[in-house]
Every structure is written in C-alpha cells, then in structure tokens.
C-alpha cells in the first residue's frame, strides 16, 4: 500500500506542477486560472494523503469553489487584452531572471531540507470532524464566535468600501 501511496503522491505532484506551469505560461488569463484550479485540486489531494480529509474537502469548497470564482471575476474586471504589453514575448534577460532566482531558491531549500532535516517517523492520525466540532464548542468557544464577527466586519467593510454608492442627483 505504501508503494501505491508514493505513486499517488507523485501523481499529485505532477498535477500541481503541470497546473502551475499552465498558470505561468498560458497566454490567456482564463486558461491560466484553469491551471491554477488544477494546482489547487492537487493540493487538496495532498491534504487527503496527509490524513486531513476535512481540510482537503474544504480546500475544494473554498479555494476551488469560491476563490477561483473571485479571481475569475477579477480577470473579467481588468482590461487584460491579449494584445497588451504583458503578452509580448519575453526578453532573454527576463527568462534568465525568471529561471535563475526561483530555481536557486528551490534547489538550495530542497537540498538543505533533504540533507539536514531528519526524516519524520510519526504517522499522521486522522482527526475526526466530530472532534474538531467539539473543540469549537468547548475550549475554543470564544475564537469560534469571533470568527463570525470577523467575517461580518469583513463583509460590511467590503460593501462600504467598494459598492457603488447611490448618488443623489441635483435636479
């Protein structure tokens, strides 16, 4: 079962990386968003592999479902024509910076992690959704209530700041 697990993990990494590449290299913003959605799906799969299926499902619900819609709206609001400045082919120096700096960071970080961090021996344990709910209603009562308050304030702030105002016309 471990071998299959590793294979599935690699498949998820493949989905994530492929989605990321589509996101970066797609010429159309909407296609880039589709790549991003694929990446988010892959991350949800990783949550399942880490024995956190609830977080995985919520990743699908919130990121794939809601945040991507938000980003799609943001794309629809911008003037992102395919004839714009960003759509021109990149210069050589841009490619160099694009590949060198993130590549250096990724490989050095990966090397350090593999070389110096001891391998974990703990098996992740799945937390039941019921137990999570018990925490919310028991010891974490105040944060639970504050969450709804924070969301209320966030929504009100968004509406006050951004919604078009009713302007009184002087007749």
């Amino acid at each position, binding site marked *: 079962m471990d071998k299959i697990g590793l294979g599935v993990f690699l498949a998820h990494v493949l989905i994530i990386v492929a989605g990321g590449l589509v996101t970066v290299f797609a010429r159309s913003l909407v296609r880039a968003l589709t790549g991003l959605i694929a990446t988010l799906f892959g991350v949800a799969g990783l949550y399942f592999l880490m024995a956190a299926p609830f977080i995985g499902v919520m990743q699908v619900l919130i990121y794939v479902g809601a945040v991507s819609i938000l980003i799609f709206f943001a794309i629809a609001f911008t003037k992102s024509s395919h004839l714009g400045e960003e759509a021109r082919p990149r210069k050589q120096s841009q490619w160099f910076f694009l590949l060198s700096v993130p590549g250096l960071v990724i490989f050095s970080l990966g090397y350090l992690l593999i070389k110096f961090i001891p391998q974990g021996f703990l098996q992740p344990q799945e937390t039941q959704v019921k137990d999570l709910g018990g925490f919310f*209603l028991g010891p974490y009562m105040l944060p639970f209530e504050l969450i709804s308050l924070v969301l209320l304030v966030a929504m009100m702030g968004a509406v006050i700041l951004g919604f078009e105002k009713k302007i009184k016309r002087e007749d």
Partner: protein
Amino acid sequence: MIFSWLHVAIILFLGAGVLFAGVPLLASLLLAPKCKDEELLLPYECGLRPYGTSWVRFGINYYFYALLFLAFDVDVLYLYPVAVYYPFSEGFLPLIEIFLFVFILGLAVIYFFKKGVFSWPRRIKV
C-alpha cells in the same frame, strides 16, 4: 503518508471524470470534418459581423457578491464540524453558541438588506 481505499475510490472517480470529458473531445477531433477558416473563429458564425471586442467589463458590484459568497463559504467551513458534533453535545450551551454564531451572520444579511445590496439598481445607500 496515509493511503487508504477511500483514495483509490476518489482517484477512480477522477479517472472516470477525465475519461468522460476527454473521450468526446477526442472523438470530435477524430470524427468531425475538418475545415479551417477565419470566419469559423467568430463568436457567432452566422448573422451580423460583430464589432468591438468581446472583452466587456462588468460593474465592480458583481465582485462583491462573489466576496460575500466567499465569506459565507468560510462560515460553512466552521459550521460543518460543529453541526457534526452537535448530537453528541450536552446541555444548552452549544445551542446558544451556535445561535450566536448564526445570529451574527444573520445580522450581516439584515445589514445588506437595509443597505440595499440585494436590490436594483445595485447601489448602496450612503
């Protein structure tokens, strides 16, 4: 890494979904007659020739509906485990807590209603 039969089932469904979407595309690629023309790339192949770009911009207000949806979506994230736990809880305190949570969110709906977010024309009262 935890891998169980649940994952096998999910992956099987994923594969079935990819097949379900992919096979018609492939079939149309193989079976459909091929012809190329500039005219075929128009949004509508017949009728009036479109003028201007299809990239119209919407009112910013629609973005806020998506934003409100996101906020309520996050609420579901917290309400779901609480709802699962609720049958096992004891006493009245959990009921009061959930009522408070939902009440505060209800305040948001009332506020938007008063402010005119849900009405046409989509402009809030100052």
